[in-house]
Each structure stands twice: as C-alpha cells, then as structure tokens.
C-alpha cells in the first residue's frame, strides 16, 4: 500500500467521524430547540409533575445562580462557592451545611471531626477558602434563651 493511499484512507475515516459527529451535534441541537420550544414533546402524557420542589434543568445551566442562590445546592452565592460545592456535598447534602451556624473555630472543628472520623480528605489551601465562605455566609445568630414565635400563619378556626 502506497503512502498516498494510506493517507487517503486516514483522511476518509477521519472525514467519516467528522460527518457522524456533526450529524449528532445537529441532532442534539434540533432536539434541544424542539425541547426548548415545547418541553412536553418529550414527556409521556402520564408524567404530570406533582412535586412542589422546583425542578432545575441542569442541562440548561448546571451551576445557575438566581437571586444570589446557587440553585442546584441552595448555597448562597459568594466567594468560594464552588470550592464549597465541590468539597462539601460529596458525602452529605448542602442542606446539612446550610442549617448550621458556626464561628470560624467551630467550622474548623467540624472539618477536623469529619477528617478524623468521616473520611473527609485534606483540604489543603481550600480549607481557608471554605471556612471563609462559611463564616461569611452562615455565621451564628444570637437567639437568646427563648425566641418569639415568628412566621405565624393566621387562620380562622371553626370548631
């Protein structure tokens, strides 16, 4: 087989891959456009959403931030957000972090506890970034010995 033939064959096979790839990209693109115009095209009729949880479409933007909230996790947007997402949501959900309020010392203590007992890795330089994000966005709030009742939903009681 001559060198030229060989080269031609390679070009041909490369061209083939290129065409297939292009066709696939085009197909996904077309389906994507149809989906964007009318998402119900792809869902079965039975499938009525009954969840009150907002269904975020990660295909659209996996890390979308709306009103200062990282939609996928619920974390507040801020410096170090993605470092926190990437290191702190592998074992437990973000909700466990968000519910808690701690100062720097106690966030670090919590990290040490997870490293000692829960297989959390050495965070290296990221630890500073993570702790700074947590203290800034989830600092302790003083509640006193008993808080007033808040968020009362008033309703007329028939009895």
């Amino acid at each position, binding site marked *: 087989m001559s060198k030229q033939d060989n080269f031609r064959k390679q070009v041909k096979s490369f061209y083939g891959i290129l065409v297939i790839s292009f066709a*696939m*990209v085009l*197909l*996904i693109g077309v*389906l994507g456009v149809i*989906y964007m115009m009318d*998402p*119900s095209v*792809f*869902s*079965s009729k039975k*499938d009525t*959403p*009954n*969840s*009150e*949880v907002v*269904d975020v*479409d*990660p*295909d659209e933007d996996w890390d979308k931030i709306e009103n200062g909230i990282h939609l996928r996790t619920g974390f507040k947007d801020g410096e170090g957000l993605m470092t926190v997402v990437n290191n702190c949501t592998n*074992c*437990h*959900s973000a*909700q*466990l972090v968000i*519910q*808690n*309020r*701690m100062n720097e010392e*106690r966030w670090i203590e*919590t990290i040490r506890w997870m490293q000692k*007992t*829960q*297989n959390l890795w050495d965070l290296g330089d990221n630890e500073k970034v993570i702790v700074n994000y947590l203290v800034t966005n989830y600092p*302790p*709030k*003083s*509640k*006193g*010995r*008993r*808080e007033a*009742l808040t968020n*009362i*939903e*008033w*309703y*007329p*009681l028939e*009895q």
Partner: protein
Amino acid sequence: MKRRNFVKKTGLGSLVGILGLDIVYGAKIPENYTLLGLQDPDPFQMFDKDKEMVVLNSKPWNMEAVAHLLDDRITPNKYMFIRNNGLVPENIDVKKWSITFDGESVKEKKTFTLEELKSKFAHHTYQLTLECGGNGRSEFDPPAKGNQWTIGAVGCASWTGVSLKDVLNEVGIKDDAVYIGYHAADQHLSRDPNKEPISRGVPISKAMMDETLLAFKMNGEDIPLVHGYPLRLVCGGWPASTSGKWVNRISVRNIVHDGEKMTGSSYKVPCNPVAPGEEVKNEDMCIIESMPVKSLITYPKSGAMIPKGKKLNIRGHAWAGELEISRVSYSIDFGATWSECSLEKPVNRLAWQHFKASISFPKSGYYEVWARATDSNGVSQPMLLPGWNPKGYLNNACHRIAVKIS
C-alpha cells in the same frame, strides 16, 4: 422529570453528549432503567410521607413533622420523622435476613433467621415513644452542630416484635454482660465498607425490659424501609438512635458498647452543667439514657383565630422517657398562672399520654397557649431552654401555639 424523559428518549449516544461523560457498559443498561444519577428523588413519594413534613437533609435523609401533624393517638407512617445517619440499605432479601448474637458476654455465638425469630418467640405489641435526642436542637444558643430539628422528631407508633429479653435468654448471656450494641445493614455516607454509620446500644438492664423489642411490624404492617425494614431494635423512651434500624447483629458486651456514635461526644451531654458555649472534654460527657419530660400541643395548629366568647379546645401528647406523666398544665399568660388539662393514662408503659383542655379567654387580643408536663418524679418542663450542651440535645422546653381572639 421532563429532563429525565428527554434524556431517555434521545438515546444513549446523546446521553453521552449531554452528560459529557461516557457510560461504561452503556449498552448493557436494561430498557426503562433510569440511571441513579438521573433520578430526582421525591422523598414524600419514596417514603410515603405527607407533603407537610419538612426535609432537613437529603443525604442522609432526615425529615421531621410539624406539631399539628402529630395529632393522631398512634403516629401513622406518613407523619413519622426520619433520622438516618447513613444510606438506606438497598436490595434487602428478607428470606435471607438473619440476626447474629455475639460479643464477649454471650455464652455462645448464635444466629437466627428472621423466620426463626418470628416462629420461636412470643409476639408483643406496644405503642412506644421514639424521640430523636437532638429534637429541639434549633433553639440552642450558641447553636449546636447537626440537623436543626425543631419539635417534630418524635412519634409514637405501635411496634410488634419479639422481646429482646426472650432472645437474649435463649442465646445465653454471661454474668459480666453490661451493654448490648447493635450492628446494621446501612452504609456509611462515604460508602467505605469498613465504616458503620451508627452502632449504638443500651445497658443490659434496658435490653432486658419487657418493652424492648426486636420489631418487624410498625402499626400492624411490615416496617417501612426507611424506618428499619425488615428488623428494628426498639427501645422506647430512650434517644431514638438506640433503636437501631436494619439490625442484623447484636453484640453483648462486657464494657459499655464502643460502636460508632457511642464514643466521642455523640448522644452525650455534659455530666455536670456548663455555661452556654463552654468547651467540654469528651471524658466529661455522659451518655443520654431516658429522655426528659416533654409535651406537644397538636391541636389546634398555631395561628388559630377565634371569635370572642368562644372556648378553645386544645389537645396533645406528653411523654417522659422511662417515667409516666402525672400532670399537664396550660397557661395563657406566659406562665403567670397555670390550669390543669385532663390527662389519660398511657396505653402501655413508654407510650405517650393524651391531654386536653377547654380554654376561655378574658378579652380580645394576642395569646400564646403554653403546655407544661410534669413527670412522676415531680419534674416539669422548663419554659426557657434547658441546660445548654455542646451537641444540642434534650431540649424539652414547653411547646406553645399562637392564638388570636377577635
């Protein structure tokens, strides 16, 4: 949900494109199978829970009730709180399920299949109060780390099983036995097979009580998966973490059980009272045993508005760990005066008791109805937060609801 169908219908080739990764053995995925990574879990559907239940954490699953959902005398599954430490076991083969008794203080290691357990020992049914040790944690100041439970990590379902005592007697335990520790089939969050998410237990005296069950039924049906199917240890009146789910081994120990979340500071409070925020060494922490006296107003829901001159009927439950409730009182003037509620006897030991009252209000305006239970030792619930502790356990402060008279 729609995304999932979209992904399904566009086929695997595009799936690779969309996810930006390759699925090894993609061709072998059975039809109609949804990849785990693409499932959006609806916990209410998955665990058959009411939509008003509150999810605190999705990994691990933790969910609590709100006060008015707990109005039933026997808590149905849909209002039963979920507290998990690890991942719910998958692919349980109930036919092959067995429980092994081992440890320093068994005369001989012994294993029973679930069927043997059910056929060999007498069945008992008790209504048992289970409350998470951290119920009420959200109120502590300075805040304590962990799931921020408000008031809804409690329930009193009916449990059917065999007495652990009967099984321990059959196994034969040595005189030096001091504690039992459970082991279970749930997986550690890190999926490290060498780690147990939780392995707690109780002193042998609690293990030998009539009401301490190896249960296979909750409210007359197979225990729901998330609550420990097919076998759960139930130690009523103690922190619910002692009621191990998915139990497949019980170690009879000649020392205080040293399993996961028995050592360190978990489920422990300072042996001596400390100031809020004070640091406490592990060796100065003591294991929580019986839960403290507590009550909940389950009717009406907070926020009721009633016309002037009408009486308000309230009701709820009270419980006190190992003890009985002797009295429940209510106050509409922030504790200045208290009136008695009528109180029922428990249906059995370790079951919560029901109280009710009919309240008149002197004039229009904003009120809070506070309930306060007293146990058989004369100990009452505090109106303020009880002693601060580093992990935020045992908040048994009085429950209250807001009422408006117009």
